[in-house]
């Protein structure tokens, strides 16, 4: 990979150890993917925040970086392992809370915005079409590529952090025009679309091809659900929806393979994901609930009575929560409003054995990362369980 004199100096350690490490990471990644050069980024979004995933090793690394490095572009954080205020109510141990606070503090020292969310594009980090980004968090980066038309590869936590510190990322993959065109057409032939199940079915069958959807008209919130489900089921980091997403070009699909997605495929996805019953935890908000989703839930729940004894969580970002206090008042009669975290990155396995969710993404991760039996329901199905 070609490096400018400035970049060579950073690699040689002339700008400090933290910058040297970040530059070494970018060069290693650039070489692996055969990038020709580094390109400037507008923002970064980092995964690797929960103490549950990065552990003590992660803390040592962040502490050493934070000694002399700072991020050069606006940078946001993924969910942490707990609600920073209500961790005791969540059953988090003081030791875990202490280590989690330390991780967030390290990111703060690095200059990262510490509103912990997987939906930065609904908060303080809103990309524009055509901008170059380095985002981790598979659902957010797919949303940024697809719904917004910004450009990011599927970064891992360390790669995104290195890019944030240098302010550049290796130019390969989805940064290049030719790699953003569709590879398969998905004809959706279902009346009422469940975007989690659709996303799961498509994500598991398209491999590394970019899907081009026809026959659906998702809202922004539905695009968020679709992006998350596809990224978790497969490696989809970008998709197009005809007439909806900014880079969907009907001329680009000539001669492509067509995948017909009907009721049978959706039901097969449901049977694959819905494996348990009698959930001990019912969790909504993967990805984090938007303002519109919170309003929708509150409108449906208002005036109804709480039923069942399962614990209920509504997961969202602190940024979003601040915008709808009245609606959250309604939701809090039915369960906990949990900020900064979600059911996947907090250690729920210490308290629950089965979880119900409406998220295709959560269905993929709950069994392995959290040892949960998973109950899949639509949003309406979950509301019926609790009211």
């Amino acid at each position, binding site marked *: 990979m070609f490096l400018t004199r400035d970049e060579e100096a950073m690699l040689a350690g002339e700008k400090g150890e933290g910058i040297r*490490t970040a530059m*070494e990471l970018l060069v*290693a*990644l650039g070489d692996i993917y055969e990038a020709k050069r580094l390109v400037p980024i507008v923002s970064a979004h980092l995964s690797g925040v929960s103490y549950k995933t*990065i552990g003590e*090793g992660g803390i040592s690394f962040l502490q050493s970086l934070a000694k002399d490095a700072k991020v050069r572009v606006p940078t946001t954080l993924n969910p942490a392992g707990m609600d920073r205020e209500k961790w005791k109510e969540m059953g988090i141990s003081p030791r875990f809370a202490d280590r989690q606070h330390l991780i967030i503090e390290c990111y703060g020292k690095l200059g990262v915005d510490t509103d912990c969310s997987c939906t930065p594009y609904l908060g303080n980090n809103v990309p524009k079409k055509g901008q170059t980004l380095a985002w981790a968090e598979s659902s957010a980066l797919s949303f940024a590529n697809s719904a917004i038309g910004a450009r990011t590869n599927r970064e891992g936590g*360390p*790669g995104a952090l290195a890019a944030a510190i240098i302010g550049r990322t290796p130019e390969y993959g989805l940064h290049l025009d030719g790699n953003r065109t569709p590879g398969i057409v998905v004809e959706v032939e279902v009346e009422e679309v469940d975007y989690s199940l659709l996303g799961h079915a498509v994500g598991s069958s398209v491999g590394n091809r970019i899907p081009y959807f026809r026959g659906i008209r998702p809202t922004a919130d539905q695009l968020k659900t679709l992006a998350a489900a596809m990224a978790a089921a497969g490696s989809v980091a970008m998709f197009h929806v005809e007439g909806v997403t900014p880079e969907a070009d009907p001329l680009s699909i000539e001669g492509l393979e067509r995948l017909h997605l009907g009721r049978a495929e959706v039901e097969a996805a449901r049977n694959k994901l819905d494996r348990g019953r009698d959930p001990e935890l019912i969790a909504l908000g993967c990805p984090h609930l938007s303002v519109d989703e919170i309003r929708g839930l509150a409108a449906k729940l208002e005036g109804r009575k709480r039923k069942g004894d399962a614990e209920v969580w509504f997961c969202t970002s602190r940024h979003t929560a601040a915008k709808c206090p009245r609606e959250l008042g309604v939701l809090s009669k039915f369960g906990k409003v949990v900020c900064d975290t979600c059911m996947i990155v907090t250690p729920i396995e210490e308290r629950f054995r089965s979880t119900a969710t409406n998220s295709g993404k959560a269905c993929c991760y709950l069994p392995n990362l959290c040892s949960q039996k998973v109950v899949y329901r639509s949003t309406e199905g979950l509301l019926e369980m609790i009211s």
Partner: protein
Amino acid sequence: MLPEGRVPIYRRIAGDDILILKGRGISKGRGEGEVVLSESPVSFLGGVEPSTGNIAGREDGRSVKGKVFAFPQGKGSTVGSYVLLEMRRRGTLPAAIINSVAEPIVATGSVMARVPMVDRIDLGLLREGDLVVVDGDSGTVELPGVRENHVVSCVLMDGEKMLLLKRSSEVGTFRGYWASVSGFVEEDETPAETACKELQEEIGLDLMFEKEGRTVTVRDGCTVWHVHPYLFRATRPRVVIDWEHTEYSWVRPQDLKDFQTVPGLAGIVRDLL
């Protein structure tokens, strides 16, 4: 211990006692130790125990701590990068990592945990327990005590049959084995020159080769052989053998399996034909 800045393998002369494999540097620094070899891809998350460095599922309970860990490539969760950091904290890191093909999980983990790492290395040239030096700056793996020889293998065909010669007890290597016309590439020769010279010396034929095959590299004990294959054709040639062979035979390539041949011969013939 070893001199810095050795020349790459392809420019080195035969008979040296340090083999240098040229790969690509992924993570900087030099590390040396015994090779621990895994033939399948490795997931650090769940695949290596950070408190001991032990590899999961290995019956001999071997640890990678302080060793040179060689495996084809990483796999599994991206959280695997953080496992290497945890190993650093606990002092169980490998001295270096060698991969066939680097992928982002192990590459970023190695850079963060400061483990020297090199990829694009043919793992077939390494053996469990080899003492090696990995240089992440130059992208090389040095194998002291392993010599390297360039030889030619001249396959002579007459119609459907090839010439097979039995090596005498007076030659230096593979005595009593069946082989093609072969010989060491001397320092001042190209392999093509050696091929024609050996054909003349060993069986008395003055011919030009029809085809040059892909060089095959094989490890045999402490020697790595770079075999340069050449295909010759002749009709009813008069073969006169010298002291290097005791007898010869014309055989069909598919019957090679019935002979005790030098390593790799069947593959070379298949590739040439």
